[in-house]
């Protein structure tokens, strides 16, 4: 029974990494938000599949949150923000798309490399599952670091978080997964609301009230 | 007990008696070399007597220090002279102080004189004191290094022991001793304010050092200072004689005959020293003040070289 179910789980995780890569590849905000929705959707599928094979019904809630909140609500809200704040539609990437992709590759390799000696997870497939989750986390962080645009940074954070949820869901029998995903959703909501409230257009730091562009963490 | 005491006192009186004569001799030699007749040899004694007889005239704002200084200077110089073997080595109180103490006593005298020079608050006193300090800052270490040189060879800093060692042991010719002698001569010229360092006969403000310090003195105070100056010259020549030419010195516990020989040889040594000094002074010109460091510094370097040689190799 293990063979096929793990293969599917594995494949879904692989899709998630792929979705992360395509995030790195995007140069337009709306497209990026679409990819985000796809990312969350794949996550929802993946979590649901885990719920199925682990026979853990509570994971379905997590999957639902992923679907409803992350795949639909957040991308919609971000789209609104982009529209309302008149944010530039193109993503300013640090270091260009190509090198970022290469860095993403390196991160995946690194994740596999550090996970390789892990023997505790008897099934090598599960091990790679975690390795893929790690890749998603790292790529999410990479997205945050290499994108100058606040919205795309939120997207990066979301994909990072998706990786974590993936890992949590993949960890058989892990308690509190639902609570964690709820907590994270609240966190993300706070960030999105914050962006909207503070009218953060370009960067996370420029809490734009006009004069404060010069201020960056105080001079003293 | 009594005899050494007598010898000691004889020595003290002898140096006191001979000191003005030595000054007179140097002056006479210089005058003769200048084809002048010059003052008689005893002129310094007359000067002293005349100065003592006069009233002391002192600036209104002079403090007690100004009055005490001449006696201090004189006492220090005299005690220093008492510690230097002149005709006999076994002086009763020679163990009171060694060669370093002698040098330091002269330093005390200089300290007192410099302070006295500053006491009135005139510009000349300051000129003299500051130049004196600069010169002394080189001459004193040179003296100490000469002492080191000699002490390392003789194994003692006591002048009596040094003289005995030089007299009796086979010291032979030594490079460091030669260096020390040259250095000591330079120091002697410097410390006694002789040409080329200073001109004891000048009152030209740009050049004078020692005379600038005593400008304000008169009467008996000036007499004490003049006498100290003479004594100082005698001390230095005696030191040179006692270390480098100890011929004729009566040893410790020597009989009256040896004493007599010593007492006879000593004035001859002084005379030779005086004449040589006079000749030297006449054959050289006074230096500019800021060339002096080179001159005195040379003595310091020679002394250091001598000591270094002794440290590195005992044979030098």
């Amino acid at each position: 029974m293990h063979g096929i179910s793990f293969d599917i789980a594995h494949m879904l995780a692989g899709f998630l990494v792929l979705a992360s890569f395509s995030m790195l590849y995007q140069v337009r905000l709306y497209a990026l938000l679409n990819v985000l929705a796809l990312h969350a959707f794949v996550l929802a599928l993946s979590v649901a599949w885990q719920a199925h094979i682990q026979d853990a019904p509570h994971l379905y809630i997590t999957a639902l949150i992923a679907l409803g909140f992350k795949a639909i609500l957040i991308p919609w809200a971000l789209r609104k923000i982009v529209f309302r704040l008149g944010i530039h539609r193109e993503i300013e990437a640090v270091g260009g798309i190509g090198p970022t992709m290469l860095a993403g590759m390196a991160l995946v390799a690194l994740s596999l490399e550090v996970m390789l000696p892990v023997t505790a997870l008897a099934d090598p497939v599960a091990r790679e599952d975690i390795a893929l989750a790690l890749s998603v986390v790292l790529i999410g962080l990479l997205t945050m670091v290499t994108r100058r645009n606040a919205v795309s940074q939120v997207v990066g954070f979301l994909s990072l978080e998706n990786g974590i949820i993936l890992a949590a869901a993949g960890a058989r029998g892990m308690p509190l997964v639902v609570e964690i995903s709820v907590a994270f959703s609240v966190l993300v909501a706070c960030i999105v609301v914050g962006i909207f409230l503070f009218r953060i257009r370009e960067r996370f730091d420029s809490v734009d009230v006009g004069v404060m562009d010069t201020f960056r963490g105080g001079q003293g | 007990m009594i005899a050494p005491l007598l010898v000691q006192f004889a020595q003290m009186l002898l140096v006191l008696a001979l000191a003005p004569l030595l000054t007179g001799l140097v002056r006479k030699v210089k005058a003769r070399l200048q084809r002048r007749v010059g003052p008689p040899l005893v002129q310094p004694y007359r000067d002293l007597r005349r100065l003592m007889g006069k009233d002391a005239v002192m600036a209104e704002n002079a403090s007690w220090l100004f009055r005490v200084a001449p006696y201090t200077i004189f006492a220090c110089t005299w005690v220093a002279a008492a510690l230097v073997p002149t005709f006999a080595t076994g002086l009763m109180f020679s163990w009171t102080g060694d060669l370093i103490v002698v040098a330091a006593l002269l330093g005390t005298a200089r300290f007192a004189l410099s302070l006295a020079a500053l006491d009135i608050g005139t510009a000349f006193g300051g000129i003299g004191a500051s130049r004196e300090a600069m010169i002394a800052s080189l001459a004193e270490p040179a003296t100490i290094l000469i002492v080191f040189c000699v002490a390392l060879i003789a194994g003692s800093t006591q002048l009596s022991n040094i003289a005995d060692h030089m007299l009796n042991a086979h010291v032979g010719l030594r490079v460091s001793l030669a260096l020390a002698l040259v250095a000591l001569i330079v120091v002697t010229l410097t410390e006694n304010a002789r040409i080329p360092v200073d001109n004891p006969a000048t009152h030209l403000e740009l050049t004078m050092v020692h005379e600038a310090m005593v400008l304000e003195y008169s009467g008996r105070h000036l007499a004490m200072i003049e006498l100290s100056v003479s004594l100082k010259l005698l001390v230095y020549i005696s030191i040179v004689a006692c270390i480098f030419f100890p011929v004729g010195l009566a040893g410790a516990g020597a009989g009256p005959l040896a004493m007599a020989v010593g007492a006879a040889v000593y004035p001859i040594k002084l005379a030779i020293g005086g004449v040589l000094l006079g000749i030297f002074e006449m054959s050289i010109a006074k230096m500019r003040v800021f060339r002096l460091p080179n001159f005195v510094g040379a003595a310091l370097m020679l002394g250091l070289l001598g000591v270094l040689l002794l440290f590195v190799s005992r044979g030098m």
Partner: protein
Amino acid sequence: MIAIVPGCIAILVALGVAGAILARAPVGRWIVYGGCLLVGSTSLVAGLIAIGGPTEHLVLPLGVPWIGMHLRLDSLSGFFLALLGLGAAGASLFAIGYGRHDQEPQRILPFYPLFLAGMHLVLLADDTFTFLFAWEFMSATSWALVVAQHKDEGNAHAAFVYLVMAVFSGLAMLLAFGMLAGAAGAYTFDAMRAAHPTAGVVAAAFAFALIGAGSKAGLVPLHVWLPLAHPAAPSPVSALMSGVMTKIAIYGFVRVVFDLLGGVPWWAATIVAILGGIGAVLGVLHATMERDLKRLLAYSTVENIGIVFVGLGLAMAFQANGFPTGAALALTAALFHALNHTLFKSLLFFGAGAVLHATGTRDIENLGGLIKRMPVTAATVLVGCFAISALPPMNGFASEWLIFQAILLRPELPQWGLKLAIPADGALLALAAALAAACFVRAFGIAFLGRPRTPAAEQAHETDIWSRAAMGIFAGLCLLTGLFPGAIIDLLAPVAQAMTGARMPVQTGDPWLTTVPVASSRSSYNGLLLFLFVAASGGLAAMVVRRVGSAVLRRVPPWDCGFPDPSPMTQYTAASMGQPIERVYGTAIFRARSTVDMPAPGDMRPARLTRTRSDPVWDAVYAPLGRCVTFVSSHLNVLQFLTIRRYLGFVFGALIVLLAALALWQ
């Protein structure tokens, strides 16, 4: 016996608290300084007894819990305890009178006794923690005292430099002890004594002890804080800092090198001796050019510390070559000079304090003629000047003479380094002594002699009775220790015995109380007799001259070579007094420069002479270090103003680096 000292410390701490509470009440001064006077006297007596007494131990349940506070009173700490007690008693006596003029006693009274308490504890400490605790406590409390007169310009900066250097010295000492402790981490000194360190450990421990104690004592090139901090403190505290605290540092050095290490290789001795010699000359040269009276004294402290270190270096050299009697001579000489320095430097700082209070200035260019208005101060300071200039029959001469004897003792030491260092030291010491005389002629002459240069100096008044008493006692002690150096040498015999395994010959048995360091055929010195001789000859001369010649004294206006000038401004100034020496030595060493700005003929503006000099050590070591810190910090400071994205980049980078390291490690 030993229990007395912790008692003293407890009383001092209590006095500190009392000082904090009673600071503004006049009685506070009496209680604090009076109490310190009593405690100081007690320590003096206790120390004197302890020098010859047995070594005592005491463990208190304080400090690091499982170690406890180990205290030990032996001959070495006994000697320094006596020195501390003496200095403390003198300074407190002085302060009883002087403290009346303190503007803000609440900044002084609480810290003064605590400072003394810290110094007491250093001397007794027998484990690393207690030692460093006391060492840093001493620094911290004295820092508070340095910053007491915080409104004067530069004092705050001085205090800052001081504390940084003091903590630096503490850390270096900690490194030294850490080296001795080894991997086992021994904390008690007994364990360190028992250990057999390797050559490398000895070298490292020595180096750190030299840096640590040297920077606390003011050894060149670690002296830069000293001329800033000592003058900034109130005068009794300056006296304590210069006169006593630097000795505590020397105690630390002796404790580590002679006691805990039990001997160091010859190259270490060479380093110490050379640094000491250079320090002596550099210090006094600075002093000669200084016009701030207290700073001048502070620089002179640098000089005297150099002299003490020369003595210590010689002792180390002799010890390294298995020549304990020589080591005993040199060590005795060094410690004797340390004692002497306590005496005359305290005295001179008292005098400087009295002058400062009487005239409101420390700049000797604004003084003059004080000998008439402050006769007692002038006379005692004159004694101090004689003593510090190493002139017989004062104590400074006696100890320097002993050091010279040590230099001459054994020229056949085998190592080339010592062969060069020891004679060079002789020259440097002689140079320092001569320059010291020049320096103090200038200081005393300009400040006390001549005519008053300012109205303040003209209206100066003699200081109070307590201060005069303190100065008088110390002047008397300067003379007494100069006249009877043999007594001090004998007093130091147990210390030398404990540290070097040998002692100097017994002095008190010699006829006429003569001092014979090695053998009478080698050298001897009798300060008492010399003094009597000089006094008798001088008296005799005066008597005879007045009898034979005229005894009349006429007072007239100054002659001045025929240029009588009423203005005191035409007197020689301190600057011009120092100019020849500055020109000879300063041009090369301090890059001293004088530039004259001479107006064109007809121009009414005054001509200006600008003089500059710089401290070579500061320029070569401290300024680059400061620039280095500034450089690094200003470049790092960019990190304060980054965007969140970049900060996230750091997190990301750290994560990647750690994961990569993990991958590699596996």
